[in-house]
């Protein structure tokens, strides 16, 4: 809308208005002028500046009382003119400055005139605009000593406004104006005048006079009303640090000439001038320090993040510019920074971090001894008070205290190395850390939780992509409950490890670790973190300067810690009360030292059963935690070393695996996750892979420890775990260690059989698993046979006379053979079968080929089983029977080995079957089944002679009991035994290919169980027996069943020449056998 671009046009328009205003000074006229002015272009206005200003200034200067409203509009109009023009004359600037400031002057009081808020605002803005519109040269000459009184007046005016006004708007405006006045403006539309050093120095000298006033007034503003808006705080802080940062800048002060230049001004003004010499700097610095501390105290806890952000700014500016002049308050300034690093607002955190990083880059701390000293002193003081603070503060307080500690360490960076060389520092720090990290160990549940199923390591690697500590077990500390505090502590330790001298620290904490049980857990935790830190993983290094130690050295350190962790007295601690068949007794002996030297003050829960000083729940908990922490440590070491850790596996894997089989749930869980950590660190796909690849190390440990079984009672467990997780490729190694195992077993068969038996079980299970081909082919053959047997039955759909004739003929022939009239047919067969044998003998002279390794192992094991099958301990007997079954499975195709062994095992097996605990009978029967299915012929007569009568009679005698029994019966052992026998008898009869007489015995014994009075399960099992009997001898089964219950009145013979047959079994519906028999007969057809 700028229509009047040339001065002439503009003049034409403005002249009448200006004249009018000069004559009559009213608000309307001023507003009229302002409206006209808006239509004038900037360039034109600049030409007419003086002309336009005249009526306005005239209005201000006219003596006599004026209406505020008028002054306000005049000032606003003036401001408008100034905002679109420049002030080019020194005089004009000075005059305008005085005139504007005078508007707020009240001659009566020291305070600003009691005028309306609008006017105040207008004047403040006018001043601000004036300073902005002044030319650079003019500004320079403006700030000369003679102006001091007037400037001082304006400054104090603005300060007064900022301090005492109610209106937030005015306060902020005043503060901003002050900033402009002090030439520290940072607004964008006016490029900040850039002064040369000389000029800056000059300005600094001039403005130094105002420093005391400004700083104290601002401090009052800042610390005054806690509830004042954050924008006021932000602006005040800005003015404060800009002013202080300018006047106290090291850059200026160092260049300060010694002698004071004689100012060429009148005496009164000269008295106001200040020469910033050393003494002045010192005293001002001291005073400022007090003020700054007050400000920090107040603002660092300001609820609004912008205020805290500005405080960070303040710290940055002051530390960067005035680190020497304000050396006294560097400590507090750094503390702010360090404390706010973990601020809850992300902006503040980010800013803090950038500032810290900048400091590090510019080596503010590292480069200057003074700062480093201050920091290390603060650190020392903090470490000293830390234990007290940790006891008294709440979690939030602890959090901020520890944040501070962390911040100091971060800031000190490489200097930490130097600081930690001081024994006092290390001791304070370590004492504090150890105290804070004290664990709560009174939880009873931990000891109670047991791992019962000893199945495979169920570690799922997918859950483990996270870094080790994300899965660290939740632990409970004496001093705090907040998880964040723990995280902070870890970071602190890691930082120590990263910057500090690892050798020194490890030595120190190792010493603590040795010193007492009380410190052991904490020391271990700290050691773990130190190593992680030393590896430089996940460390936020703001100095980008690594003084890291080489991987070789780190490995050596880790190795030594590892040795300590896994040493006899630190690894084998008591974690449970009940001795496992006396096995743990020896272990207790060792753990005892650890316990008795402990000084736990928690309540003592004595166990009267044990005569010797019994471990308390507390101490056991403590032991559990210690083991867990050490296990975790191993995982963390692996993480720290990465693939390098592979070299330590030879010593680390065995102990971890040992703990993976521990009875305490927590320990075994932690050990398992440690293995997963190791897998990740060393690049193995799974725990199985890890164990498989490193079983040579394990075997080494196992075989050496087996030699001293009393000292290493857990060795068999490790072997067990290893066997479960490895594959057939390890057979040579396994064979080697199995020899050791068997030798040790022979030596200790009376004391430690239990643990060995489970190893043997694992071994044989592994063999069965590794060599499944043998098993599967066996089943294949069997099923083939079954099919072959079924086909002819299926073909007999229609019967002709020829069939019958054929049947009778063959029957007669068979009967002949059975009666001993052996035809030459059989001898022929024999000859045929003997011929290939001769061939074999030719190719293989009397030397037998060496047996496959696994067969040899199974053979050796089975031999031991024969001996151990009559052990006194029922558990062992049961386990041995299982092993025996597995041996049979492995050996099934090596009849030459199996049969002699089976022969030797038989008497013992029979003994188990006939006169042992029902549980043992049950297992023994299972073995019998396996044996029967693998070497049927061999067993037939023995079975019929030794076992069958006993089984049949027990079945018969139990039948009435089970028929009468209630629903609870199905939970009794007797029932289970009946069920097992009935279920197993069928397949057994089939595989043993029993003769007719024996089959009848079986059928007789089982018939009773077809009654519907029997429990349903037994009925089912009995039916299965008959289904099997049908396969062996369908005809006699058919007959037996029909004798029991006959659904058909009369049978018509297949050929008219034969008589119809009638059976005399009861047919009525009350027959308890009817249902089952009918079902079976249906199957038979």
């Amino acid at each position, binding site marked *: 809308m700028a229509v009047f671009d040339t001065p002439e046009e503009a003049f034409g328009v403005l002249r009448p208005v200006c004249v009018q205003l000069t004559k009559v000074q009213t608000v309307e006229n001023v507003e009229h002028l302002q409206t006209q002015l808006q239509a004038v272009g900037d360039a034109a206005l600049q030409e007419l500046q003086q002309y336009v200003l005249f009526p306005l200034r005239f209005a201000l200067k006219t003596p006599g009382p004026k209406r505020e409203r008028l002054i306000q509009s005049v000032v606003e109009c003036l401001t408008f003119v100034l905002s679109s023009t420049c002030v080019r004359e020194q005089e004009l600037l000075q005059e305008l400055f005085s005139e504007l400031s005078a508007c707020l002057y009240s001659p009566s009081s020291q305070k600003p005139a009691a005028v309306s808020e609008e006017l105040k605002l207008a004047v403040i803005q006018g001043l601000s605009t004036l300073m902005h519109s002044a030319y650079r040269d003019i500004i320079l000459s403006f700030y000369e000593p003679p102006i001091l009184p007037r400037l001082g007046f304006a400054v104090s005016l603005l300060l007064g406004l900022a301090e005492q006004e109610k209106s937030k708007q005015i306060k902020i405006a005043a503060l901003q104006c002050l900033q402009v006045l002090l030439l520290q403006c940072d607004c964008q539309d006016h490029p900040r005048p850039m002064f040369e050093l000389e000029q800056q120095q000059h300005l600094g000298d001039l403005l130094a006079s105002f420093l005391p006033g400004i700083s104290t007034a601002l401090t009052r503003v800042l610390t005054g009303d806690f509830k004042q808006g954050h924008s006021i705080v932000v602006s005040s802080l800005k003015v404060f640090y800009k002013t202080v940062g300018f006047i106290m800048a090291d850059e200026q002060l160092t260049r300060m000439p010694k002698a004071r230049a004689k100012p060429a001004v009148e005496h009164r003004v000269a008295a106001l001038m200040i020469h910033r010499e050393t003494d002045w700097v010192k005293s001002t610095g001291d005073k400022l320090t007090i003020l700054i501390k007050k400000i920090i105290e107040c603002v660092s806890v300001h609820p609004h993040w912008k205020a805290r952000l500005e405080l960070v700014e303040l710290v940055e500016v002051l530390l960067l510019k005035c680190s020497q002049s304000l050396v006294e308050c560097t400590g507090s300034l750094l503390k702010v920074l360090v404390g706010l690093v973990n601020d809850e607002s992300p902006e503040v955190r980010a800013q803090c971090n950038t500032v810290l990083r900048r400091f590090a880059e510019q080596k503010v701390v590292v480069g200057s001894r003074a700062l480093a000293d201050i920091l290390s002193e603060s650190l020392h003081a903090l470490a000293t008070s830390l234990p007290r603070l940790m006891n008294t503060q709440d979690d939030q307080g602890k959090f901020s205290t520890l944040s501070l500690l962390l911040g100091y360490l971060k800031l000190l960076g490489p200097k930490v190395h130097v600081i930690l060389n001081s024994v006092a520092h290390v001791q304070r720090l370590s004492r504090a850390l150890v105290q804070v990290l004290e664990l709560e160990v009174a939880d009873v549940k931990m000891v109670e939780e047991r791992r019962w199923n000893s199945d495979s390591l169920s570690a799922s690697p997918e859950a483990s992509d996270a870094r080790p500590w994300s899965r660290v077990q939740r632990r409970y500390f004496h001093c705090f409950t907040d998880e964040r505090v723990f995280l902070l502590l870890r970071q602190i330790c890691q930082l120590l490890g990263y910057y500090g001298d690892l050798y020194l620290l490890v030595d120190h904490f190792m010493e603590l670790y040795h010193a007492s049980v009380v410190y052991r857990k904490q020391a271990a935790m700290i050691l773990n973190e130190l190593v992680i830190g030393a590896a430089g993983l996940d460390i936020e290094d703001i100095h980008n300067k690594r003084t890291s130690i080489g991987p070789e050295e780190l490995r050596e350190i880790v190795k030594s810690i590892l040795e300590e962790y896994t040493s006899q007295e630190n690894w084998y601690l008591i974690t449970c009360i009940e001795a496992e068949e006396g096995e743990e007794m*020896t272990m207790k*002996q060792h753990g005892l030292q650890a316990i008795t030297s402990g000084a736990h003050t928690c309540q003592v829960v004595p166990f009267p059963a044990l005569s010797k000083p019994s471990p308390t729940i507390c101490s056991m908990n403590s032991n559990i935690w210690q083991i867990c922490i050490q296990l975790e440590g191993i995982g963390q070491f692996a993480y720290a070393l990465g693939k390098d850790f592979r*070299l330590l596996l030879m010593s680390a894997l065995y102990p971890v695996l040992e703990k993976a089989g521990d009875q305490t749930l927590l320990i075994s869980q932690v050990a398992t996750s440690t293995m997963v950590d190791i897998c990740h660190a060393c690049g193995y796909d799974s725990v199985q892979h890890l164990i498989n690849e490193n079983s*040579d*190390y394990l075997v*080494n440990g196992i*075989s*050496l420890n087996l030699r001293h079984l009393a000292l290493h009672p857990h060795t068999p467990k490790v072997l067990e775990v290893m066997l479960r997780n490895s594959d057939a490729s390890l057979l040579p190694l396994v064979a*080697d260690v199995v020899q050791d195992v068997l030798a040790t077993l022979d030596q200790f068969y009376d004391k430690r059989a239990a643990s060995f038996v489970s190893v043997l079980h694992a071994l044989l299970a592994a063999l069965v698993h590794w060599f499944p081909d043998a098993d599967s082919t066996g089943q294949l053959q069997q099923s083939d046979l079954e099919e072959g047997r079924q086909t002819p039955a299926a073909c007999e759909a229609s019967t002709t006379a020829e069939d019958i004739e054929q049947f009778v003929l063959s029957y007669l022939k068979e009967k002949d053979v059975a009666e001993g009239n052996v035809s030459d047919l059989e001898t022929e067969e024999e000859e045929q079968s003997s011929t290939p044998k001769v061939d074999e003998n030719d190719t293989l002279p009397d030397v037998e080929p060496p047996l496959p390794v696994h067969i040899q192992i199974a053979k050796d094991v089975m031999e031991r089983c024969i001996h151990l099958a009559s052990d006194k301990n029922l558990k062992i007997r049961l386990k041995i029977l299982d092993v025996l079954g597995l041996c049979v499975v492995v050996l099934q195709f090596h009849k030459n080995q199996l049969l002699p062994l089976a022969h030797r095992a038989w008497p013992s097996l029979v003994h188990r079957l006939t006169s042992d605990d029902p549980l043992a009978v049950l297992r023994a029967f299972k073995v019998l089944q396996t044996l029967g299915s693998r070497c049927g012929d061999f067993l037939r007569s023995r079975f019929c002679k030794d076992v069958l009568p006993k089984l049949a009679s027990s079945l018969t005698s139990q039948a009435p009991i089970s028929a009468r029994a209630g629903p609870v019966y199905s939970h009794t052992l007797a029932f289970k035994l009946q069920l097992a026998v009935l279920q197993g008898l069928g397949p057994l009869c089939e595989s043993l290919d029993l003769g007719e007489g024996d089959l009848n015995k079986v059928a007789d014994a089982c018939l009773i169980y077809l009654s519907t009075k029997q429990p349903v399960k037994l009925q089912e099992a009995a039916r299965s027996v008959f289904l099997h009997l049908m396969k062996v001898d369908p005809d006699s089964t058919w007959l037996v069943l029909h004798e029991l219950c006959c659904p058909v009145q009369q049978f018509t013979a297949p050929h008219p020449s034969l008589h119809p047959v009638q059976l005399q079994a009861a047919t009525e519906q009350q027959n308890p056998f009817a249902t089952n028999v009918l079902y079976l007969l249906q199957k038979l057809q």
Partner: protein
Amino acid sequence: MAAPFPPPPGPRFVLRGTQSPVNTLHFCPASQALGNPLLFSGSQSGLVHIWSLQTRRTVAALNGHKGQGVTWLKTLPQGHQLLSQGRDLRLCLWDLAEGRNTIMDTVQLDSVGFCKSSVLARGQLCWMLAVPGKGSDEVQILEMPSKTSVCTLKPEADAKPGMPMCLGLWQTNSSPRPLLLAGYEDGSVTLWDILERKVCSRIACHEEPVMGLDFDSQKAKGVSGSAGKVLAVWSLDGQQSLQVYKTHELTNPGIAEVTIRPDHKILATAGWDHRIRVFHWRTMKPLAVLAFHSASVYCVAFATDGLLAAGSKDQRISIWSLYPCS
């Protein structure tokens, strides 16, 4: 309840995986290993295994003897070369530098006996080799690597010492005259002067064949073990004549190898009774009987840092660390 004595020490670790009895062992000298100490083992199945003592695993298996047992292994001073003697009547020189595992050269042997060869460095690139010779009682001396025959040492016609069983080439620090100690089937140890091709001295210190000997040139004393029960220590005086210095009666007969530790402090024997025996070399005081193996021990070897390795028929190599080198 706790055992009054600590349990007897076990081996530091055991190397498994030769899958065949271990006939001979040799530590790679530290100067050549460079932070990764190696151990060579020769097995009855004809393989030479290279073990890293750091990872305790095989680094490589050298197959150069056609499945015939390897009886002797030795590294050459000029780095990364290994000599292996096999029962396929060949002596192979392996190049092991930079991970190469290739045969550089072979020497055909004529004796089918069990006698181990011996090597003596003579200058930077040449060395002398003593191998069992063509005649059953001869020892042949070769100049290597040219393979030129220096001489054949044949005992005098009436001596009839039987086959040489073990050889030891050495020379004193003062004179460059190479000497050879040879143990014979009849239980005698003979000192040969190679340049003059004559017997310097001969003592009959065993009644059974000498199975192994070792010589300490500093103390001018040597030790030999035989198939019998006696361990004999003999010394060499200024006139180069051997004298029996001391004998030691063992509980069980049969020593497969005797080795003195490089620092001349202790010596170890490989016993057919499955045991390794350790003696104080100066006093011959028995120090330890190491029982670990479950079959005859065939060989013992010392590393420069004092580590002891023993190989056995039970296919294991046990590594022991005892009486640290001072």
